[in-house]
């Protein structure tokens, strides 16, 4: 894996993945709203229309159900597609096609029909957009057999995971975070793939394991820096794909540190964060030094008011405070 490259934005890393893959595989068709001449609401397709035109970048009106179904149908018939829901929230308009058709088709057809479709959407809170434009329901997709779920947290990961998704038999939900589009990191110019199910150790540590996804990875890393100054060594892990999950790397870390904290922008109830706690208990019960903990958004629809939304979503301060509580705990083994 090369560390050589340029510093580019998350949005541009996605564009680069698409450009490379659309050149390599001329069957790929991209469908969505505002993804043609406009270059995407988040600039997530900027410049592609010039190269690939209306045939391959298909702008639609506001018809997520029809467009998503069409993308899935095209995929079943042999054309690799991307359906860009733009805001993940709008995937809800099309959820029956995603869950009932795309996710089930391989199994229902005894493996004879595949749906190589990437369902792309951006989740999460950004600039107080309010309840209808801020959901983080990737958990629901992870709970649907037949769907793979990737949650890139950096430009580097976005490019590598997107390219893998575009070669996967699918379907893959590629879920970006709205507030990451302008973030930057080093991204190699050349072709590289990040395999699904390969977690990234963001920072090594020995006292506790922090698992975080998407935008929360950055918060976890910042909290780890603060904790380091206070003498606590946190290991931060980003699973990158939650289906499939790199269970080995995560459980190895928990066994090493004896403590698990999960940071998640989704609410905790029936969540992926809950799944990680279950895994800790199932696989690492004897090594746990403290009760595993979830630091999640409060279970409320995203409020508009900045005062309320800041209260809802995990913050670096809250992570640091709660980690201290976890560190104080000592498990008595009888």
């Amino acid at each position, binding site marked *: 894996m090369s560390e050589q490259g340029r510093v580019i934005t998350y949005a541009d890393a996605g564009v680069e993945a698409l450009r490379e893959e659309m050149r390599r595989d001329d069957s790929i068709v991209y469908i969505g709203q*505002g993804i043609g001449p406009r270059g995407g609401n988040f600039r997530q397709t900027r410049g592609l229309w010039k190269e690939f035109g209306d045939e391959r970048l298909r*702008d639609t*009106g506001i018809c997520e159900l029809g467009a998503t179904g069409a993308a899935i149908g095209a995929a079943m018939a042999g054309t690799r597609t991307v359906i860009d829901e733009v805001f993940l929230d709008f995937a809800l308009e099309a959820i029956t096609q995603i869950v009932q058709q795309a996710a089930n088709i391989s199994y229902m057809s005894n493996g004879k029909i595949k749906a190589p479709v990437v369902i792309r959407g951006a989740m999460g809170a950004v600039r107080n957009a*309010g*309840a209808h434009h801020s959901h983080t329901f990737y958990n629901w997709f992870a709970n649907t057999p037949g769907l793979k779920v990737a949650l890139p947290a950096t430009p580097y990961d976005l490019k590598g995971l997107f390219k893998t998704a575009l070669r996967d038999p699918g379907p893959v939900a590629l879920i970006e975070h709205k507030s990451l589009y302008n973030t930057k990191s080093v991204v190699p110019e050349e072709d590289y793939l990040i395999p699904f199910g390969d977690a990234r150790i963001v920072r090594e540590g020995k006292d506790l394991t922090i698992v975080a996804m998407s935008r929360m990875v950055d918060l976890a890393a910042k909290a780890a820096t603060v904790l380091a100054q206070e003498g606590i060594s946190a290991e931060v892990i980003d699973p990158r794909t939650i289906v499939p999950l790199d269970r080995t790397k995560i459980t190895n870390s928990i066994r090493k540190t004896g403590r698990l904290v999960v940071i998640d922008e989704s609410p905790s109830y029936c969540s992926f964060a809950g799944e990680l706690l279950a895994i800790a208990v199932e696989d690492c019960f004897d090594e746990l030094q403290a009760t595993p903990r979830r630091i999640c958004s409060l279970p*409320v629809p995203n409020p*508009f008011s900045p005062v*309320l939304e800041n209260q809802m979503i995990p913050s670096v301060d809250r992570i640091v405070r709660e980690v201290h509580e976890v560190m104080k705990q000592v498990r008595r083994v009888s």
Partner: protein
Amino acid sequence: MSERVLAEQISQELLLAYYKKVLELRLFELKVQELYRNGRLPGFVHLYVGEEAVAVGVCSNLQTADLVFSTHRGHGHALAKGVPAGVVLAELWGKATGSSGGRGGSMHMYAPEYGFMGTNGIVGAPIPLATGAALSAKVRKHSQVVVCFFGDGAVNSGSFHEAVNLGSVWDLPVVYVCENNLYATEMAFVRATKNTSVASRAAAYGMLGVEVDGQDVVAVHEVAQAAIQRARGDGGPTLIECKTYRYVGHHEGDPGTDYRTREEVQQWKKQDPVKLARQRLLDSGMDENKLQTADQQVEQLIDDAVEFAEKSPEPSAASVTEHVF
């Protein structure tokens, strides 16, 4: 019916009321634009500048008990339905005194006490909801009428098709008002569909469809009046297509110039709803002084709204989990 005849049928008093409301919507949005550009308001706003005659022309026929369902571009609908400007602005400011106590913001503001059933961040979603509200009025044997506003962007969604069909087959007391401003974000209506007459689609559902000049508050009022009377009299729904235009970008931040020509914008500004309503008053013999007094009253109303919203408290952080259920 010619415009002249219509104008003569309407009293000067009513004309003045429409004019003041149209102006209120305009000045309100320009104030929101200014506050937003100065970084005072959080979130995102979609302004109604240029389309005011639609909301006022329709809602001037409604009673408080009647219900309105609105869109992402809904500040004007709220004001036209009677929600006080201060309460709307406080919501846009995320203040505790806003219509949703700061929980909603521009795209999620609700004031059922004024018969305002919400703006909406999801295009198409209000159409089934309005249809259901009309079903409720019908089964409760209430004389309520429901009005649903939506853009040209919504009519290619499944929600529109399914809901309008139900409204028609159940003869519900609902009026579907499409604000066809020719664009959905940057997507020209002609790129999104082959049938660009929204009114003509009514035929597909066996229902009445009417097209009207959405820049003329009196013309909208007349067409809406007939539709609302029909709905109230158990005559079933109507689909009204209002031809209109937004002068501003899709949302604040979009210059709105990449996908439209300057000439097109200028052409539409010649049919400005504020100017047209004012001209009608002048034509009816109202003198300039009286109009200026009206202007000052509206300006004062906006100033008061800003003062109210600005001085209002933020919600308390501890209240974040209230009202989930």
